[in-house]
């Protein structure tokens, strides 16, 4: 949490102003009882009407000044907290943009989203509260003590007794409650989990007739949570009556001891009335501070999560300027030289000793079972991850010696899971090349077999894609994602299992159209189906991260056992002979 507060440094001036404004306002509020005691002591008791009116007007003036300072402080604190949130949010977002896929894998996409959105809102709210309440409360304390001591130092000794009592009660309740809060949170999670399971598994539950069993499971979790929550609430129920009682008893003590001092003539009656107000104000301020402590753990957890993002150094950075080497002119080839790669924390490498070359004008297919490392392999080409050993070369140059943007500009990439952004269809295709002409956009859509459904839409290319592409089907998404890559007109294309959501007819037509379109490029296709890779110039067979064979379909059928197994698993023996 402390680290994030360094982001408040630019607001030093504003914060200083806020503190002083609030202090002035506190003093103003504390001054009013003093003035009132003067009205009592010098006006009322002496029957001085003029004094009463003048002091009254003065009180009004103090009130006005105090509200002005208070509003000014509120203005500054709103702006400061919001601006703090804005800067922090931008910082986190722009930092996350530099992350490689490895950092995204580590945090998890949904966790990163939470960190950039809710967590920052949490911290921003805390800052806002701090700038209002947390500054106000201690200042009220200090002001209250000052005024109390100034009014009557000996009577202030009551505070020496009462403040520790108050603190003890607060500490006791908190230490018991926080533990229960934590266990309550865990039970809420359990209840939600049971509920989510009973929603996602509804067909299974009903098919196995386990409805009543689920009912019991839910009831158990519900009961457990209810018990804990009730206990928390019952403990918290002590808090405010106990604190109120302490404050009220302090007031009684003030009346008693103060009364004695009035009797001895060492204190005036108006001062006593004012003193009572100082004491209550002070004790309430202490309570306010204690309430703040409830907010801190939650915001501090958020702050730590945000800080973890900001602290993470991106794994992949551009080479320093003097190391950058230009790659050879087009056409470009992609070469793997004895590449080994492991995901962080994994025992065995995801890829080991991979060597092959994908030549321009050729189709290189990569096939293998799940977990064989196909997607991992193609992710190394645009340098989404860095290799552990060996080299990936694009255009004869190590990818680590090129800037990421230059390297990626050479690659038309179609991911396994089609991702579209909100905006028009044309916008999405133009993501490939910002200045593509309408003709080029249309052409890309045509090759990707997307033109038919685009033109069927009422707005054509101007039709809006909703967030996450919810309003188009999986197959349409995939075709648009292919069109986007084609619009780039890159010398290298990567299709990471990009035809899976297409029906067979579209699949066949698309591949035929592609063949002409990307004739001169180096094309790398990851596939599951043998029928997709059959015609490739070269097939790389992966098995558990190793190359099991490289060659054409016919060559592999003769030489590669793994390939034959894959073929066999997809077709009946008679068919593949």
């Amino acid at each position, binding site marked *: 949490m402390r680290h994030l507060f360094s982001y408040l440094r630019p607001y030093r001036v504003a914060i200083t102003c806020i503190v002083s404004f609030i202090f002035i*306002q506190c003093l103003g509020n504390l001054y009013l009882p003093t003035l009132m005691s003067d*009205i009592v002591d010098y006006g*009322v*008791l002496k029957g001085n009407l003029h004094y*009463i009116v003048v002091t009254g007007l003065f*009180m*009004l003036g103090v009130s006005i000044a105090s*509200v002005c300072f*208070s509003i000014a402080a*509120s*203005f500054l604190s709103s702006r400061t907290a919001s*601006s703090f949130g804005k800067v922090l949010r931008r910082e986190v*977002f722009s930092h996350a*943009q530099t992350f*490689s*896929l490895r950092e*995204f894998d580590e945090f998890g*996409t949904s966790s990163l989203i939470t960190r950039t*959105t809710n967590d920052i*809102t949490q911290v921003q709210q805390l800052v*806002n509260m701090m700038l209002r309440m947390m500054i106000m409360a201690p200042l009220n304390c200090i002001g209250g003590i000052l005024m109390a001591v100034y009014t009557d130092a000996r009577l202030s000794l009551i505070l020496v007794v009462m403040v520790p009592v108050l603190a003890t009660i607060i500490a006791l309740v908190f230490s018991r409650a926080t533990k229960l*809060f934590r266990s309550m949170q865990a039970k809420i999670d359990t209840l*939600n989990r049971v509920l989510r*399971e009973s*929603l996602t*598994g*509804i*067909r299974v539950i*009903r*098919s*196995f*007739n386990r409805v009543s*069993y689920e009912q019991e499971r839910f009831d158990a979790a*519900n009961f457990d949570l209810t018990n804990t929550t*009730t206990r928390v609430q*019952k403990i918290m*129920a002590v808090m405010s009556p*106990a604190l109120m*009682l302490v404050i*009220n008893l302090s007031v009684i003590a003030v009346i008693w001891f103060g*009364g004695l001092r*009035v*009797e001895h003539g060492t204190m005036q009656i108006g001062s*006593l009335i004012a003193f009572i107000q100082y004491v*209550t104000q002070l004790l309430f301020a202490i309570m306010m501070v204690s309430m703040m402590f409830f907010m801190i753990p939650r915001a501090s957890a958020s702050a730590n999560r945000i800080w973890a993002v900001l602290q993470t150094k991106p794994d992949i950075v551009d080479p320093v300027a003097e190391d950058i080497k230009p790659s050879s002119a087009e056409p470009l080839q992609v070469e793997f030289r004895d590449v080994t790669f492991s995901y962080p924390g994994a025992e065995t490498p995801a890829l080991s000793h991979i060597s092959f070359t994908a030549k321009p004008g050729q189709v290189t297919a990569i096939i293998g079972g*799940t977990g064989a490392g196909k997607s991992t392999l193609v992710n190394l080409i645009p340098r*989404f991850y860095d290799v552990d050993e060996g080299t990936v070369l694009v255009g004869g140059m190590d990818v680590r010696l090129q800037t990421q*943007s230059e390297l*990626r500009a050479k690659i038309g*990439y179609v*991911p396994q899971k089609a*991702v579209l952004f*909100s905006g028009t269809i044309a916008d999405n295709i133009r993501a490939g090349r910002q200045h593509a002409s309408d003709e080029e956009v249309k052409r890309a859509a045509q090759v990707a077999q997307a033109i038919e459904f685009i033109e069927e839409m009422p707005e054509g290319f101007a039709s809006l894609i909703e*967030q996450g592409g919810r309003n188009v*089907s999986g197959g349409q998404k995939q075709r648009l994602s292919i069109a986007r890559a084609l619009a780039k007109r890159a010398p290298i294309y990567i299709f990471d299992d990009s035809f899976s959501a297409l029906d067979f*007819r579209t699949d*066949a037509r698309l591949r035929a159209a592609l063949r002409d379109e990307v004739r001169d490029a180096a094309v790398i296709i990851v596939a599951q189906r043998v029928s997709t890779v059959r015609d490739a110039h070269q097939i790389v067979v992966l098995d558990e991260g190793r190359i099991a064979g490289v060659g054409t379909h016919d060559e592999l*059928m003769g030489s590669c056992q793994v390939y034959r197994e894959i073929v066999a698993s997809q077709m*009946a023996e008679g*068919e593949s002979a």
Partner: protein
Amino acid sequence: MSEREPRDMRIMRPPMPMGRGGMRPGMPVQKPKDFKGTLRRLSRYFKPHLWRLAVVLLMTILSTLFSILSPDVMKNATDDLVAGIRHRLHGIPGSGFDVSGIVHVILELAVLYVLSALFSYVQQFVMAGVAQKTVYALRNEVHAKMARLPLAFFDSRPTGEIMSRFVNDFDNIGNTLQQTLTQLISSIVTFLGVIVMMFAISPWMSVVVFLTLPLSFYVTRTIAKRSQRYFVGQQRSLGQLNGHIEEMYTGHQIVKAFGLEDRAMSQFVEYNEKLFESGWKAQFISGMIFPLMNFIGNIGYVLVSVIGGFLVTRGAIGIGDIQAFIMYARQFSQPITQLSSISNIIQSTVASAERIFELLDEPEEAPEPEDPVLISNPAGDVQFEDVRFAYQPDKQPLMEHLNLDVKAGQMVAVVGPTGAGKTTLVNLLMRFYDVDGGAIRIDGVDITRMRRGHLRSMFGMVLQDTWLFHGTIRDNIAYGRAGATEAEIVAAATAARADHFIRTLPDGYDTVLNEEASNISQGQKQLLTIARAILADPAMLILDEATSSVDTRTEILIQEAMSRLMEGRTSFVIAHRLSTIRNADLILVMNHGSVIEQGTHEELLARRGFYAELYYSQFAGAPA
């Protein structure tokens, strides 16, 4: 003496981890459609707690009354002191201070305070039980209701939406019951009590304090109206910004691959700036309410001091009266500030309750037959007779005049492109949905004449969308049949070819599957669901063949396990493998949700229809 009490201590509730933040003036509130009706219905849930609620009500009123009385008692102490001073001033000998009077007052005060604190504690303590028990009962009722809802309900809305009703709406109701209800009572009591006390002390000063009332209302209203605009804007910008972040993060790979970082950033900055602009204004304007109300309170304070002082010099009231009056004037403005926020909270709570009641009012599944037929030893004949079905009654039916005749022990292959609606078949067979016309019969008995539970117990289901729950592997397999023995579980796992991999896991059968069950592979999950089905020992099966998401070796295991499972049972196989399809007794070809062709492999090829085209493009002649 508690005139500085910051808007009643009761509002300072423990911040619940999921609790809503404090209501600020102008913050958008969800309004219920039928406030009265929902409130009446909600109050029915209090019936079992009536006497407890009566205690809470009584305690709240008493505790509030006592705290209202205390300034009136305290003023006597002040008056005694003042009298003592006056006497000394006028040199009346021997009469000095009335110490016993002050002691008396102090004791009286102490009793009032202790009782008030005690009552307030009892009230909160009892209310905690009532609130939590009510929420508990309501939660269980909703969950029980979900078991009676048709599948159509769950299919037509995202899981997240149902979850959010559970989480947020119940949380809302629980908090309001705990805090707001008693706060409402004490606010009203305080308001009325204080008016009475103020008039008792001095009608003139009371009138003066009342004059500040319209000002308070005006300020509250104006601020709420102004800040609302910015709160709405803030909400909108926050939605846009979060949407953008979500989109850019989920598409991170694409952003990188296409070098879109700069564009993502500039869009972000634009949304972020908009959020800042409306955000700080909403904060500032809604935050003004506190200093302004404080200021109005101070005006009252000044007026009371001046007019009170004047009245004292006239001998109309005592100094202690001023002191008490100041405290009352402070307490008086509190309920006014509070009531608007309380009313917002209650509105949003009733809206939450309404959403929950809507769920409870959803139409349930058709009732079970009165005289259910029991098939004790099902053979597994399945017939569809002239079946008509549509997910939405007003739409073109997906199935019309569908006739099928499957004999016991036969294997039916269901083929078609992805998303062709193969689950529709599952839905009808298991009676997750009811047919709109015609009938489905098992061993000659219409399935609507059986209990659903009985019908479903005759089926085993192994789908690709494997559902396992957070628990041990043993429990997950045992889910197939309540009361299965350890030996039966292991036997089922062995038959499902799962025993081996289970034993290689660190804790064997006691391995706990995590929430996403991501600690075992997709294929292993499917083996577990097969083991679960084997344990259930059904007469009929619905199977989903493994596709590409499983590696070759596991796929062979799954294949073996499935063949083993299918022996002697009527099976419906959602098929991806040619060998399965060719061996099937009947092939159903599905597209766009409906069965478009049926027959054996040879018959369908001869027809040269959709199946033939599918077959030739995907399988035949592939490898030379």
